């Protein structure tokens, strides 16, 4: 038998060769080769951690207040089997940290979760507290497929929780098995214990009726210009689950397929970053598994934005708020979210030059994170760009007083308490060019400008700002 084999083999190989030539034009994988896949283990914790890293629980940064002491396994409490995960949520003044949270990570190369539709677990609390975040897909490396379910309400008896997978086809090699974050916001600072058991990826078959959302479901219109980029945020996926409830999870951009209607105007990558590459209008939309997401971004570019005049004052004369030429004296909040505000504000950077683009403004503000002492300064400089005729912008330079709080009369909009301001309105702006203003620090703030805290912006409605700084000539 053995010495006959070579001839047999030779004949066969010839036949196979001929067959191969006849039946296939391109080389396919031979039948006994298997595409390498990662293990599809669904269990994360049953009575023990299942194939997780040795440290099992990887805490958020203790330097940021995360408490690493409150995590362990409880051998006296279990939903099923003999033990559960026990998390002691600390009080805000706990010397070991004011909240607890972190991740569980797969110990090897990651898992193939494409066959599952949800991460589920059983949990109960010593109080009916609300846990801020549970989810998966965070691995503290690139968090590419992070998913978060916010604010789950605990019961004092075991209850099952379901975190739907937004788009399981993406999870070919996932390492982030679980994430949680819990504080005492819902319990007025009272610490409590949270138990978690039977944590596993499951194929429920009842995760249905997907409703993906981008940009919080809004259809935004934004002016931009070549070279700028815009991040698509407000990403969620909603499913109806077996209980009949809709469950909405925060979903990382990589679960979505983004599309630009005109890639000569704007392109969009898998991280949801829109890059404006030419003039014209493009509509950015997204799908998950062919289901169109609510929300869109219509971006209109008029080509490249000319650079604003470059400031020439020595930095010793300047206290900067938003300017690439100087080091800003404070960071600022450009999206304060005032009630009734319709404004969209975006910091857009092209060619290392950042500008502030305002769309659909009625009123908003630039809120300084730290107050500015302008006692020795006499002007505020700002450059304003308009793309439509008839645009006027009002600047209200606000001193917020010693209490460090913006005090505004809600009926008149005027400063009250220890606040004072000076208001300046531009005339009609020159279209498609930078308009430079040097606004004196006068009026209500002539003698009170040591706690400048905000610049309130009214009117427009569409304009671009650059080079905002206080100075003395």
């Amino acid at each position, binding site marked *: 038998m053995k010495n006959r084999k070579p001839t047999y083999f030779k004949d066969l190989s010839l036949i196979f060769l001929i067959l191969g030539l006849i039946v296939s034009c391109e080389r396919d994988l031979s039948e006994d080769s298997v595409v390498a896949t990662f293990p599809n283990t669904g269990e994360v914790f049953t009575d023990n951690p299942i194939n997780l890293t040795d440290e099992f629980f990887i805490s958020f940064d203790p330097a940021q207040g995360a408490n690493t002491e409150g995590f362990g396994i409880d051998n006296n409490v279990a939903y099923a089997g003999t033990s559960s995960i026990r998390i002691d949520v600390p009080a805000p003044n706990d010397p070991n940290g004011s909240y607890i949270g972190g991740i569980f990570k797969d110990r090897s190369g990651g898992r193939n979760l494409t066959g599952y539709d949800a991460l589920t677990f059983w949990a109960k609390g010593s109080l009916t507290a609300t846990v801020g975040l549970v989810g998966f897909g965070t691995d503290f490396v690139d968090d590419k497929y992070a998913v978060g379910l916010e604010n789950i309400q605990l019961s004092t008896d075991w209850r099952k929780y379901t975190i739907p997978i937004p788009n399981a086809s993406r999870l070919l090699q996932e390492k982030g098995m679980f994430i949680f974050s819990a504080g005492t916001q819902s319990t007025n600072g009272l610490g409590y214990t949270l138990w978690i058991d039977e944590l596993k990826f499951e*194929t*429920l*078959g*009842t995760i*249905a*009726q997907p409703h993906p959302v981008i940009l919080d479901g809004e259809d935004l219109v934004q002016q931009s210009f070549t070279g700028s980029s815009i991040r698509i945020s407000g990403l969620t996926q909603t499913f*109806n689950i*077996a209980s*009949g409830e*809709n469950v909405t999870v925060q979903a990382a951009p990589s679960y979505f397929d983004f599309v630009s209607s005109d890639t000569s105007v704007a392109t969009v990558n898998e991280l949801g970053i829109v890059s404006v590459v030419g003039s014209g209008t493009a509509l950015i939309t997204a799908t998950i598994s062919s289901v169109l997401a609510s929300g869109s971004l219509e971006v209109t570019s008029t080509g490249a934005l000319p650079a604003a005049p470059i400031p020439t004052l020595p930095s010793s004369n300047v206290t900067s708020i938003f300017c690439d030429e100087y080091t800003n004296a404070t960071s600022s909040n450009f999206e304060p979210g005032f009630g009734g505000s319709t404004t969209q504000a975006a910091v857009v950077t092209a060619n290392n030059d950042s500008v502030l683009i305002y769309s659909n403004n009625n009123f908003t503000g630039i809120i300084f994170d730290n107050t500015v002492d302008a006692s020795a300064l006499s002007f505020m400089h700002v450059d304003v760009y308009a793309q439509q005729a008839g645009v006027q912008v009002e600047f209200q330079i606000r001193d917020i007083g010693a209490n460090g709080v913006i005090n505004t009369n809600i009926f008149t909009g005027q400063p009250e308490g220890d606040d004072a301001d000076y208001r300046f309105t531009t005339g009609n702006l020159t279209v498609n060019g930078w308009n430079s203003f040097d606004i004196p620090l006068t009026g209500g703030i002539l003698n009170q400008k040591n706690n400048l805290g905000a610049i309130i912006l009214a009117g427009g409605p569409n304009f671009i700002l650059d080079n905002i700084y206080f100075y003395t000539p």
Partner: protein
Amino acid sequence: MDSIFRKIMIKLIGKSLVVLTFLMLTSCDPNEAQRVASFDNLVMQDEFDIEGTLDSNLWTFDLGKGPGNDGWGNNELQYYTDRTENVTVENGYLLITAKEEAFNGANYTSARIKTEGLFEQAYGRFEARIKVPYGKGYWPAFWLLGNDCGQNIWPQCGEIDIMEYLGNMPTTVFGSAHGPGYAAGDAISKKYVLENDRFDTGFHVFGMEWAPDYINYYVDDVLYQQITKQNVLEETNGEGQWVFDHPFYIILNVAIGGNLPGSPNTETVFPQTMIVDYVRVYQK
């Protein structure tokens, strides 16, 4: 070699048949032995193959908010119409669509079709292949009413609900029978819960087999309930009356809101459509 293989196969098949038969014989609990007749004579079918219209030889409409203008006795919120946007046939399917719109004093429109006076039958197998909507407030149904409700006021005329479903319970359907002594909230009813599946994501066959002394309820190939004359007496302390020996007609509808499902909420999606692939009726 071939014949040996065949012999082995025959032996194997024979053996497995014996085992199968044994299993079939032993798996029935004798106390709950269910009677199953075979109804294989197809006497009515609508495959919904006429594009754009219902077969008027088979179907007619219930319109409005019910004879008492009270939401069909259940405080249902919809106004039934025969408009194409509420009921039509497309691509081989019957579509009954519920919409949220102000219409004749109602906030929703939908449709309810029936075979009253056109197809009525006592006994047999009634089945339909259906996919339902989801969300709080949706209450689609496939059911039968006795053809004598004009003379013998409901529930004396009898009602057999082959499939009722509430949109906020997407894995559950109900099969029920209503008669004197066991009507409305006290109907004889049983729910069936799908495992690892739901009723709004695919078609399921809802079947009912009705003989002189029992009514069997099926989802797909699963018999989940049998109602007998004896059940009716037991469930009603001897008060209930078996009223299922005369012809009944078929109703298909999508109700919105009312006593059973409660009102839609802000998350309920409108419009949505109940899709019916076919309705078939068999006799012995």
